[in-house]
């Protein structure tokens, strides 16, 4: 098992390299540093000089892959590919296009992102699993059908609507919580409450429905009939047998996104003015700051692969068939 996990970890290397090369191609080959400089310096009255100066300031004046001007190792290292792409493997993200250190920015912004993402993840899972179990318990009754219809309606509503409506009613009309903003420390709960609530409600439709179908599938298995034939009550069949088996796909499906919680939620953070990584990304997109976007792409893929690896561990932990073979 241990050997398997280590092997899986090595599997990450070619994938990260692929991500790295792909983003490099996208950002530097499809779109040349000249284009980028022209965009940032301004569209009108661009002089060659201004472009060159911008490139030098931001380190984009080097050749892409091979520097003929240098010798030895530095002919490979003193290039854009090495400086801007490969260095990310050492978690060296450099500075953003407006000159700030990306790594430090990320460190300070991870906290607020997690303050929203973790409660959403934990409470959301709890709420969705409980509703799904309820619906399965009352399966094929009107209660179940009502639940399914509600879930479909909930998931047909745009996430933007939940946010806007939530802000309008809870903050603007009823003044229960501030519309947006963030505070450090314990005081943050007032700012966190609404975004968390809105995110949970927005995810309830699809989550509940998905878990319900997993539980229903388990309900149709033979071992459930065996459990009933033992004289167990329906609740016990549901909680001891169905829940335990159903939690395997649910947990492992949830574990994949666990590391990605660091990335925060783009929409929620930007609407609620939370200084997390999600709003960082949005600001970068809107300011067309490719250095930040590149760094976040890299971090995102590292976290995704880490999530895949955690999934393997979760499987092994939850499923004896994987753990013991």
């Amino acid at each position, binding site marked *: 098992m241990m050997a398997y996990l280590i092997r899986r970890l090595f599997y990450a290397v070619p994938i990260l390299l692929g991500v790295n090369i792909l983003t490099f191609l996208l950002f530097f080959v499809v779109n040349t540093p000249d284009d980028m400089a022209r965009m940032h310096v301004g569209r009108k009255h661009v002089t060659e000089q201004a472009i060159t100066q911008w490139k030098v300031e931001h380190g984009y004046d080097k050749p892409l892959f091979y520097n003929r001007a240098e010798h030895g190792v530095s002919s490979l290292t003193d290039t854009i590919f090495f400086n801007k792409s490969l260095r990310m493997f050492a978690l060296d993200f450099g500075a953003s296009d407006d000159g700030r250190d990306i790594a430090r920015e990320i460190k300070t912004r991870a906290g607020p992102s997690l303050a929203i993402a973790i409660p959403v993840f934990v409470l959301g899972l709890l709420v969705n699993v409980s509703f799904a179990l309820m619906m399965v318990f009352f399966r*094929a009754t009107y209660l179940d059908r009502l639940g399914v219809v509600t879930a479909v309606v909930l998931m047909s509503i745009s996430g933007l609507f939940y946010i806007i409506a939530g802000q309008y009613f809870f903050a603007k009309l009823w003044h229960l919580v501030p519309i947006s903003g963030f505070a450090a420390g314990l005081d943050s709960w007032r700012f966190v409450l609404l975004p968390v609530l809105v995110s949970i409600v927005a995810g309830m439709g699809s989550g509940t429905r998905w878990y319900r179908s997993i539980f229903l599938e388990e309900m149709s298995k033979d*071992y459930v009939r*065996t459990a009933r*034939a033992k*004289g167990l*009550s329906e609740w016990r069949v549901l909680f*001891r*047998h169905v829940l335990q*088996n159903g939690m395997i796909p649910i947990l492992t499906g949830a574990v994949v996104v666990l590391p990605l919680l660091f990335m925060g939620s783009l929409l929620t953070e930007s609407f609620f003015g939370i200084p997390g990584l999600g709003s960082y990304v949005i600001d970068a997109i809107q300011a067309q700051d490719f250095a930040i976007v590149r760094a976040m792409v890299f971090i995102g893929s590292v976290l995704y692969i880490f999530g895949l690896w955690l999934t393997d561990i979760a499987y092994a932990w939850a499923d004896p068939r994987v753990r*013991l073979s």
Partner: protein
Amino acid sequence: MIVPLLRIDGLHTRLGELRVVDGVSFSVMPHQTFALLGESGSGKSMTALSIMRLLPEVARIQAGRIDFNGRDLLKLPESAMRDVRGGEIGMIFQEPMTSLNPVLSIGEQVIETLTRHRRLHKRGAREEAATLLQAVGLPDAAKRLNVYPFQLSGGMKQRVMIAMSLAGNPSLLIADEPTTALDVTIQAQVLALLRRIQQQRGMGMLLITHDLGVVAEMADQVGVMYAGELVEIAPRAAFFDHPQHPYSLKLFAALPDRTQRDARLANIVGNVPALDSEFIGCRFAERCEFAFSRCREESPGWTTLADGHAARCHLLETAAVPKSVSVAQTIQLAVASDKVLLQVTDLAVHFPLHSGLWANRRNVIKAVDGVNLHIYQGETLALVGESGCGKTTVGKAIVQLQPATAGRILLDGVDLSALGKRQLHQQRAYVQMIFQDPFSSLNPHLRVIDLLEEGMIALGVEQNAGRRSQILVGLMDQVGLPSRALQRYPHEFSGGQRQRIAIARALAVQPKLIVCDEPTSALDVSVQAQIINLLKDLQAEFNLSLLFITHNLPVADYLAQRIAVMYLGRIVETGSSEEIITRPRHPYTQALLAAVPSLTRPAAANIVNGDIISAAHPPDGCHFRMRCPLAMPICTERYPDEMQLSGTHSVRCHAVAQAERVAGLN
């Protein structure tokens, strides 16, 4: 008068629109086994589930009484019924693979019942669980309580199921096809276990099965079900001595047997009637050769004969009892020539245990490990063995669906395994395959004509479309299907009809050899007889050679001239059918034969012990030595060499070799 343990009276159960149980009444006596016999879809499992009130959600019990220990189970509130389930009535299901919860250890699953019904907790429950598991034959049970179901073989899982169903000290055990998913040697072990437990505990048992042999070994009383209704009830002896209902007679006649090798098997024409409407006459009338006008107008009532033997048939009322069903003319026998069509030498097929980038070449499963066999033109060779012995892999390697690791496969003098892609394409028409599951062997998205034409086009058998369809019409006639079936899709046919289509598909490219991979094991007995008869006819007509892969020794004996017995990747004994069936030498062959439930002799005493061993980790020396009653020191050292006993009979066993040497000295 003994009070019955369980008395079912006029039970009617519907599954959606289907009348799956339509007025069933019978009683199970204490200490006795009542066997409910019937083919698939006859409603026997639904009857069992109705007793437990564990029916699927679309099913409803419409009428009837189920009296058990002085109460009507159908009137009990759900909470009281839960005390009955697992407590007073235990139940075992057909599929041990899926019937246990995969994420709970077997100990937990047994303890759950003990806690629920016997208020045992912690230490006490664990000890009792270990005792129970030990009693059902799980070795070292106390240490293995924490084992998970996937770590056990099918037979062991079924033992755990039995332990679980016994944990509540039930007075009635319902066993729903408890051994159908198991191999024949394991089936014998489990049946013996069930018999022993029933005697020890004095339980009543309701045994549900489709297998006449199992009934003969286990039952005190027999009930035959057909299309949702009981058609005959009898004590075992009376039933096997003189079955009364025409359907029961047909079931007996459809069983392949040594004595009728040259005759056709009786088959029941037509299909089980649809259960979605009410019946007016006898439900067997359409398929009954004795049916007369009254049978179609009036449903027959029970006619009681001597000592509790009763059947529902108008013939019995008029006392014109048929003594036997007519068995059609003797079959035209295929004449095997002495020309060897297929010669397989040292065939080996190894599978790597891991695949992908990190495959380890040394960790392999030797599914087939040095198999030699040959088939004469027009001959049938049966390859017999239990699941996992590699017999299907041999078949696939011969048809070139599975690359061989080593060895030669000579068909008509051409080595198939050494051919290039193009040369192989030319040879493919000569050897074809028929598969086990008629539902997965036909592409549901193609019409029958497209299925049949595919090979003819791909292999260039007949390029002209007009002539092709002419050939196909003729072929459909030969396999007993109307030519209009060509335009239909596979899902419109029953299992037996689908198997006919699969046979026609293989024949369409005019092969010399057909590998039949358990073509009848997914079919009911009466349909099995149809397919076997068909194969015999076609073999004679086209001078075909058949490699008939099966786990069913009686079928092999009936159909084949020679039998090869396979165990863990190697052939351990081969000989003419008569030699193998009447004078088996290898202890494994003997065990296989002893394990087949018989209608005539009492239950076998010499059951082979132990579980089937995985091909991934075969023991050193002789593979069979762990289960062998004759194992000697030499058996652990090396695999026995082949020893020729007669012109056709050879065996690989140290014990036999030794015995022969001794006999030769004297």
